[in-house]
């Protein structure tokens, strides 16, 4: 049993949180239509069972024509789901709250087939949709919507509600000069609607249920947006109406800045949160949000008085049992802040998932394996990347005697290489966590130990092949004297010594060919730029890093590249590489061009390294990149699934229980 400020109880209004950790109202796409589903219940129950002090359910729209994403819950349909969640989470001691929202002009008309409602007719930055300027009757309908939703939540057994005036919210749009240009009472006093909504919710839920407010305290647009100074005024004036306040940031120009990737440092909002907390002076508990995923940072923020509690949503996606693990003195599975599984406000309606925890969004976690009769309980895993390590960890937990043999000198495989990129350093935490957990459950790890096909074929036991990937053959012509490298070469190159980086001389030009548009091409370009001044990135797309839209780093990456003065060669496919140039063809017009290039870095997709699998007669289980080079998430999921599929070995002759 460990003590930590994180584990101290906290009084919130008339209720008590058993600890300071709050799971925030993240989008999940778990809904069935617009109703909360059984999958929702299992999702929240896992966090409650893992010890979360409070669980805020995915925000439900309070008015039917607000339909910001297809699976956005609707408060009018949320009653049974709220009741089921309250029933499932309550016994674990968590405070369970209903998130309530109206997205206003940040919604879409695609599903509702109705106009958007907003304070003024400012088109949305992302979609360009021009909203209807709300008439008084519309405002009344929204207030009634909040009140009705709050009453329903309360009647369904929720301990209270959290009102959204943060990202994607009509209430923030009223509070902000960016979006509110009204000259009526709601413009002259731009907090009027928020106060009316809070008052209506309070009267709907009564004095003892919890009323929380999520407030954007910095819209990152000081020319007209909510600034920290304005947020202090707002917080002080609203504090008497609420039971807790969550400080967030972001607005119409910064949708990705509310829950960013690791490009932004963990705990980036703590200073802002402290400003607000100092201003409200203990009148209401203040929660910090914003990439708070490390237990130590969270604990010291509470200790330092930055905040009273912490929203650790993404940390609880990676480790639903974070609180119970900390209580036992353990180390929770680390969040990468990669946004690759949990950023689901996406037209494709991906179900929320986590790159490092395969059960997230598919609760309950599958751990129990069938008992099987095995001739041998020995398991050889070839390769200590994320797939191999996760398979080893789970199999050892299930009773296998596991040996992992890795050709290189350390764990992690491609993931360890990727961790060289500054924005991907947290991957190193994951590798160390996986390695450490594997050792804890008795896995033997051998590095610098290559497995031959004979070794594998003659192994007395079960073999899993997790041999990773290889450089793929180039898709362009190359001259004999062309100089070509891979991102692996770049990330593992010596830096800071006497030798020039990658053997580059001053004035040499580097071109990165990025036909994928994912994190790698941009990361490798930025990595080179930090060492060598002359690098350009070549993309077949209209925008560099198109796939980064899925993690929220698309505009960020484009801004960083342009600020670093890195040329972006758009809409061009690489056709030929020579010693001093590359030739390209325009993706649409077919026009050809030539660009100076002394070194080409080919960031194309990789090939599976499946030689061992073929040499051993395709009979062993293959996982991760050795099947097809993909993400860390795919590797970990397949590693876990393969281990679970092995079952729990029972020596031959013993009865199966």
């Amino acid at each position, binding site marked *: 049993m460990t003590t930590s400020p994180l584990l101290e109880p906290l009084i919130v209004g008339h209720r008590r949180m058993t600890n300071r950790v709050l799971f925030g109202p993240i989008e999940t796409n778990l809904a*069935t*239509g617009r109703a909360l589903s059984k999958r929702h219940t299992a999702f929240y129950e896992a966090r409650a069972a893992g010890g979360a002090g409070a669980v805020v359910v995915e925000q439900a729209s309070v008015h039917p024509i607000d339909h910001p994403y*297809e699976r956005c819950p609707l408060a009018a349909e949320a009653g049974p789901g709220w009741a089921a969640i309250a029933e499932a989470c309550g016994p674990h001691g968590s405070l369970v709250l209903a998130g309530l929202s109206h997205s206003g002009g940040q919604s879409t*008309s*695609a*599903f509702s*087939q109705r*106009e*958007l409602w907003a304070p003024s*007719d400012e*088109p949305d930055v992302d979609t*360009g*949709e*021009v*909203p*209807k*300027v709300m008439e008084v009757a519309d405002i009344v309908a929204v207030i009634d919507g909040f009140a009705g939703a709050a009453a329903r939540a309360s009647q369904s057994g929720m301990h209270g509600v959290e009102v959204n005036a943060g990202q994607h919210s009509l209430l923030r749009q009223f509070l902000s000069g960016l979006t509110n240009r009204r000259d009526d009472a709601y413009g002259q006093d731009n907090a009027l609607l928020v106060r009316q909504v809070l008052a209506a919710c309070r009267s709907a839920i009564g004095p003892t249920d919890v009323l929380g407010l999520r407030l954007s305290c910095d819209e990152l647009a000081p020319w007209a947006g909510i600034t920290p100074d304005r947020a202090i005024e707002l917080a002080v004036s609203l504090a008497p109406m609420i039971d807790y306040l969550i400080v967030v940031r972001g607005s119409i120009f910064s949708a990705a800045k509310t829950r960013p990737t690791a490009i932004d440092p963990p705990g980036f909002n703590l200073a802002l949160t402290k400003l607000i907390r100092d201003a409200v002076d203990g009148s209401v508990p203040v929660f910090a949000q914003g990439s708070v995923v490390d237990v130590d940072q969270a604990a010291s923020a509470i200790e330092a008085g930055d905040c009273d509690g912490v929203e650790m949503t993404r940390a609880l996606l990676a480790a639903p049992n974070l609180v119970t693990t900390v209580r036992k003195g353990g180390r929770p599975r680390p969040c990468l802040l990669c946004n690759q599984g949990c950023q689901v406000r996406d*037209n*494709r*309606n*991906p179900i929320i998932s986590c790159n490092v925890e395969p059960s997230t969004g598919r609760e309950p976690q599958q751990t129990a394996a069938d008992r099987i009769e095995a001739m041998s309980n020995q398991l050889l895993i070839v390769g200590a990347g994320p797939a191999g390590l996760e398979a080893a960890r789970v199999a050892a937990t299930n009773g296998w005697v596991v040996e992992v043999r890795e050709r290189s000198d350390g764990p992690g495989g491609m993931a360890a290489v990727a961790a060289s990129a500054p924005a991907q350093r947290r991957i190193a935490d994951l590798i160390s966590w996986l390695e450490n957990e594997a050792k804890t459950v008795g896995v033997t790890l051998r590095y610098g130990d290559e497995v031959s096909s004979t070794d594998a074929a003659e192994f007395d036991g079960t073999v899993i092949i997790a041999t990773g990937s290889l450089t*793929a053959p180039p898709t362009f012509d190359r001259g004999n004297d062309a100089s070509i490298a891979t991102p692996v070469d770049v990330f593992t190159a010596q830096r800071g010594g006497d030798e020039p980086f990658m053997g580059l001389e001053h004035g040499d030009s580097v071109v990165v060919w990025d*036909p*994928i*548009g*994912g994190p790698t091409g941009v990361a490798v370009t930025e990595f080179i730029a930090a060492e060598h001044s002359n690098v350009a990135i070549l993309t*077949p797309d*209209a*925008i560099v890093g198109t*796939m980064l839209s899925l993690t929220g780093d698309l*505009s960020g990456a*484009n*801004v960083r590249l*342009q*600020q670093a003065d890195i040329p972006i060669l758009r*809409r061009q496919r690489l056709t030929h590489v020579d010693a001093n140039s590359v030739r390209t063809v*325009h993706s*649409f*017009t077919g*026009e050809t061009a030539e660009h100076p290039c002394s070194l080409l870095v080919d960031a194309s*997709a*990789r*090939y*599976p390294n499946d030689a061992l699998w073929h040499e051993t007669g*395709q009979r062993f289980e293959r996982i991760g990149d050795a*099947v*097809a*080079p*993909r993400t860390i998430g*795919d590797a970990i*999921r397949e590693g876990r699934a393969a281990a679970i599929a092995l079952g729990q070995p029972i020596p031959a002759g013993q009865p199966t229980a």
Partner: protein
Amino acid sequence: MSGGGRFRYLFSPLKLGSVAVANRIVFSAHLTNYATQDGMPSEQHAAYYEARAAGGAGLIITEEHSVHPTDWPYEKMIHGFNPGVLAGYRTITEAVHRHGVPILAQINHNGGQASSMYSRLPVWAPSPVPDPMFREVPKAVEQREIDEIIESYAVVAARCIDGGFDGVELQCSHSSIVRGFLSPATNRRSDSYGGSLDNRSRLLHQIVAAVRDRIGPGPVLGVRLCGDELIEDGTTIDDAVAVAIQIEANGGVDYINTSIGVATASLFMIEASMHIPPEYAMFIPSAIRQAIDLPVVGVGRFKDPIQAERALEQGHADLIGVVRGQIADPDFALKARAGRADETRLCLSCNQECVGRMGLNRWLGCIENPYAGREAELGPSPTSHRPVTLGRSAEPRPPARRLLVVGGGPGGLQAAVTAAANGLDVTLHEATEHLGGQARLAASVPSRAEFGDLVRNLSAECRRLGVDVNLNSPVDTGTIGSAQVDAVIVATGGLPNRPWWAPPSSEGGDRIADVIDVLAGRVHPEGSVVVIDDVGFHQATSVAELLADRHCQVEIVTKAMVVGQDLGITLDMETWWVRASAKGIVQSTDLVPMGYGDRGLTLLHHPTGNEQTRTPDWVVLATPPRPNAELYFAILAAYPDHLVRRIGDCLAPRRAHAAIIEGRRVGDALTTELYSMTPSAARS
């Protein structure tokens, strides 16, 4: 020949295997996103296909059904591999068969042209070559997986027959593992499935044999082939003809369907917008039909029956795929056959609400048919399946309710059509001398002319329904007072809105003009022109092309990352780039206008904070309009007891589909209020 008047080929019957097809109009396979979250066919599927069957289509081929759990590329795909689909199959086939129309199921495995996001399984393909769109490295399938695929096609084909389908079509054309094997671009295998055409087509023939064996001789079996992938190292027409010859020689197949392009590389040529000439893909069925005797289906922007008739007459194809034409007007065939082809609600090939919604994982709709995609909920269009020339309902329903519609843009016209079809007595006043509002102007650019069919179709429908249309007829509150109406719909559109940084004409902004002013011919920019694209659609690019054609030097400036960003959604981006490049139009991105004055136009490059200036002769604004709502509020104030609604840009400036949807919805809702009965009841 069996009726059809001038369309002797179009309405001649044909047999596909043992199944009789009454005419040559095929509602061929296309995605709808009508499947449920868990991959089941829906009531909406049945209602949607039934409406086209009732409208006289000769043959319906459903959207693809996945044959295997490794194939789940988009969320709402029918999971043919799940036995649970059977009930839904029967609902669909019974609905279509009610109208005597045969229906086939298209079955498919998309191979590497897919995502593992939904399935959480590696995607399968001939070689580990990432797809150009999904960009995921697939798993190269082994023999046992190939065997599994073949078996899964046979199993799902049999399930389709069990579910009442008259046969199946194998999609081997533009997004398929079979295409992946056929195409040298994606097949790098060195075993018996790679290398020569015989090897590359092996999987196709094995699937055909397995499916025919499993379904028996009765049901129809079709194969859809791609005639030109339009990609580097891709399949071209010679290979396609050779494969068609092999298919015919091997037997078991009843017809060949065709397509062009690769869905994940050259989709803009598969679902071509109005910028691609009609019949652009005709060379494919034409070449295949010359080489084999099996019936061949031709597709590719067949918009009207005359065009389809001519293609048949000239021998390019035996059947014609009309997809978007029948989305826009489910009665496409019926009207042609009855000699009322001029009443067809012609497809615009705008791609806005059909193709445009598919890529965004939304249900299929139509810019001008507000019932498309909502047939299960709303029923087919009220003007369907009845003698539309009769006009308003013959049923006496005294006293007649009178509706005044102010504004003859798409919203006002649709509201008038809906209300008139519901039996209301409708008068429409348009202030200008033309109907159509901004839609008419949008269509005035040469390459966008087909957009004008939106206005033509709605105006004609108003005429047929007896709407009293008054041009050059501005309305004020006095008009309302004297008009003796029961309800008013205000559809007065939007007005050009000068952004904060742009001075009015009287204060130095006389060389700044709105796109609308240029298109309407009120101003004539010359010399150098900067077009500000703040809308991201056709407005900026259309006016830029128009001015470039008039020898202006044109630069488009946008704060976004690309000019005309939504052109990607309607598949207009590729052709825009080709035309812009040919016309010398410069495209500049990430630039926010900050002022206009003596120094010219000041622009902020927002990623870096650097300032730039331009000194063009003219600045043309493609910026959001503001609602023209003065009349609406004046009526509300003057006649608080009147039933008054506003729709379209007058409510919030948006695109044409929003005005049409609102016109339909408010037209029905007002009818309900006026008669206190449901519109469907009113229609019966």
